[in-house]
């Protein structure tokens, strides 16, 4: 299979993906991060507010110097006790750079403020803002006069909401939580989880910067938050305006979309990335073109991840085909 090419150094962009983990106190952020450090799919650098709650197996710790814990699996965990900036500088000047940086926002902080760091630092790129919420507590928190506005602020620009601890609520209360969220913020991407386990496929998706690194072939027998994949590959050209309009109106069950798209009138593929409802469509770097050509020829490739409610393949395919340029060659699917 052509996409299963060996890793090559042709990243379009060497910027390190950065994910922000937000959510109110008690939502499960630390549990999430503990999972991430234990079952790392890459060299994570995890920045936490304090080490107090981080609970890494002693056997996993290679060294601990006060500010930084080095793990045997290549991950590191740093405190931000002396500030986010200082912690980032430590991580980015380490002898081995991390492959993915994950920052824990404070329980009352606005995770978007940290996300802006990734948008501004040239050696970072924003992967996602993931916000956790306690399924049982959330409706009461949103209604609380002291903290309701703080929780709403945290959700405001989440790319993904992990509705956590669903095992502690009955179906009716879970439904209430979903309805509250839908009413509050239409279009918010929501997945359910019991123990704040990071959706591995999603995390992997977020640090893939080239097609061959995407999680196309994760074993089907490891259900991962019921996350569905959608794959589309075809030798067609999109009409830019139509595509942009489509990207603004995709169903909330589509959590992620990444692709290399040919746009009418352009002579190289464009990189499309959609995280939650936030998307970008930009020119690919010239240095990546030989690899892209060897992998894709002149095909457009789209890979999506969605919740269990993701529409059927045919429905999504039809949506994207509505954004074809009129002149696009109608070729059979490769």
């Amino acid at each position: 299979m052509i996409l299963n090419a060996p890793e090559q150094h042709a990243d379009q962009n060497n910027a390190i993906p950065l994910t922000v983990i937000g959510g109110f106190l008690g939502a499960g952020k630390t549990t999430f991060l503990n999972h991430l450090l234990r079952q790392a799919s890459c060299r994570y650098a995890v920045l936490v507010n304090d080490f107090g709650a981080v609970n890494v197996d002693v056997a996993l710790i290679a060294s601990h110097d006060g500010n930084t814990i080095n793990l045997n699996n290549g991950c590191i965990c740093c405190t931000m006790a002396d500030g986010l900036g200082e912690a980032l500088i430590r991580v980015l000047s380490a002898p081995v750079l991390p492959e993915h940086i994950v920052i824990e926002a404070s329980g009352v902080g606005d995770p978007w403020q940290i996300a802006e760091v990734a948008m501004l630092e040239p050696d970072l790129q924003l992967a996602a803002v993931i916000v956790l919420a306690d399924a049982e507590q959330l409706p009461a928190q949103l209604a609380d006069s002291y903290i309701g506005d703080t929780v709403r602020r945290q959700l405001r620009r989440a790319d993904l909401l992990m509705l956590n601890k669903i095992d502690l609520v009955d179906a009716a209360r879970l439904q209430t939580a979903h309805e509250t969220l839908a009413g509050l913020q239409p279009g918010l991407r929501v997945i359910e989880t019991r123990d704040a386990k990071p959706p591995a496929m999603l995390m992997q998706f977020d640090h893939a910067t080239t097609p061959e690194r995407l999680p196309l072939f994760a074993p089907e027998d490891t259900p991962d938050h019921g996350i569905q994949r959608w794959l589309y590959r075809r030798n067609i050209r999109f009409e830019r305006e139509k595509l942009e309009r489509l990207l603004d109106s995709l169903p909330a069950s589509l959590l992620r979309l990444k692709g290399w798209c040919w746009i009418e009138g352009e002579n190289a593929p464009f990189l499309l990335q959609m995280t939650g409802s936030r998307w970008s469509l930009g020119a690919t770097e010239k240095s990546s073109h030989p690899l892209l050509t060897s992998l894709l020829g002149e095909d457009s490739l789209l890979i999506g991840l969605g919740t269990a409610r993701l529409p059927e393949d045919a429905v999504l395919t039809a949506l994207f085909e509505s954004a074809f340029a009129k002149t696009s060659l109608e070729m059979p699917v490769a």
Partner: protein
Amino acid sequence: MPATTIITARKIITMNPGLPEASHVAIRDGRILAVGNAEDMKFWPDAVIDTRFADKVLMPGFVEGHSHIMEGSIWPYSYVGYFDRVSPDGVMVSGLKSIDAVVERLKAVSDAMSDPNAILFAWGFDPIYFNDRRMTRLDLDRVSTTRPVLIIHASFHIINTNSFTLQKVGIDRSTNIDGVPKDADGEPAGELQGPAARIRLFRGLQWNALSDSVSSDSVRRFSRSAVINGATTVTDLHNELTELCLADFRKETSAADFPMRLVPALSRIGATTEQIIERIGKLKTTNSEKLYFGMVKLVVDGSIQGFTGRLRWPGYHNGAENGLWYIAPNELDEIVGKLHAAHVHMHIHTNGDEATELAINAIEAAQIAHYWADHRHTLQHCQMASPAQFKRMKALGICANLFSNHIYYWGDQHYAITMGPERANRLNAAGTAKNLGVPFGLHSDAPVTPLRPLFTAWCAVNRITASGRLLGPDERLSVADALAGITIGPAYTMRMDHLVGSIETGKFADFVVLEQDPFAVDPMTLKDIPIWGTICGGQVFQAPKP
């Protein structure tokens, strides 16, 4: 027998209600041996008589219950605030009443700098006084187009830069974040806000004015500011107390000629509550005559003029959305509960009345779970507390340290923009605190406003805003109560009233030397009383003449 000195003065205001006034004070070993009149001094016939202050007025050295070491570290940079300000070296720096005046001052500084690439950093600017005409990069391009020019606002949250800086750190029209506002042409306007813009700025310049804030020089400069302003006991109210910082604090405060007692409050940032309890316990065992540990600082909300303070209904007068929690309400209960049970003395920053309410609730719950009669937990700023809240504070033994300087510096804005008329009138309600018997101090939060306790007392006595509005006449204090608010009042909130804050036998021989009697001058000129200098532990420190 150790040497005894008797200081004579025109008047000694003791702040001890049992003997409010005296003319002589005997000193031995840096402590007060006796206070009284000439007759009372007959028991020490061999004492050296010091008549240098015979025509001056002595009071207990002022106690600044809420200031920061940054008062010492910020002064090497150019001051460009709206109001006149005296540097720690006694130099009067005039306030700048227009953006053009700011540009002009900085242009002169830039032209005089020998290194053409050096960064020009200035502080104290506040656009709130310019009818919201914001400073832009084009303004600062008139200062320099070849070196970075940065101005940090009085709030310490926003930085203005010139175009050279923006280009150097890679911020341009393609930058699309909330923290970089754009002008009408889509270019960055020049203001940088929030953590992302600040990190980019300091990484891009490979320089951070705010990170190396503590050094021996800063501690020394801080102490010079204390001498000039008559303070002998001064807090540094939020400090992570790294080993590096502690080493500087210990070195400077152990020097024989160090002119003040430094009282840092340990920040809880980056540590668990259990770690904080352990650290503060250890630090307390290292206390020395001029360095005191014991207080822990918690910050519950932001500031009112920055719209980050947490308010109860009806919220901000201008409709701005409610402010920010820096500690979650339920987390506050847990932290306060644990610290209280471990008998850790807390200083809790609450600006808005909703933050005040939660802090009171937390202390109430902690007090029910674990009774501690004399905890003296203190709400810092506590600017918007209502009478009902002060009554609860009284019942629970909670102290207030009020930010009276706000009345002058931002009172007009609180009246018109943030609080509206009635609530602005009860801003820093020292009169209510006094009437209800809530122990209180009055503070400056230097360098946010100048470290000048007499000015702070003047604010509490007169409640006059910068534009001349009388804000809440019924909350005005008598001169005597205001003077207590800068001496024995804050000393009590710091658990140091057995050592400082009044002139009594056994306490440290810490005095401020005034040229005039605060009770004899027109209360409207209280702030203008010249300060000759201070005496700390019996050692005399003359302030430089302005």
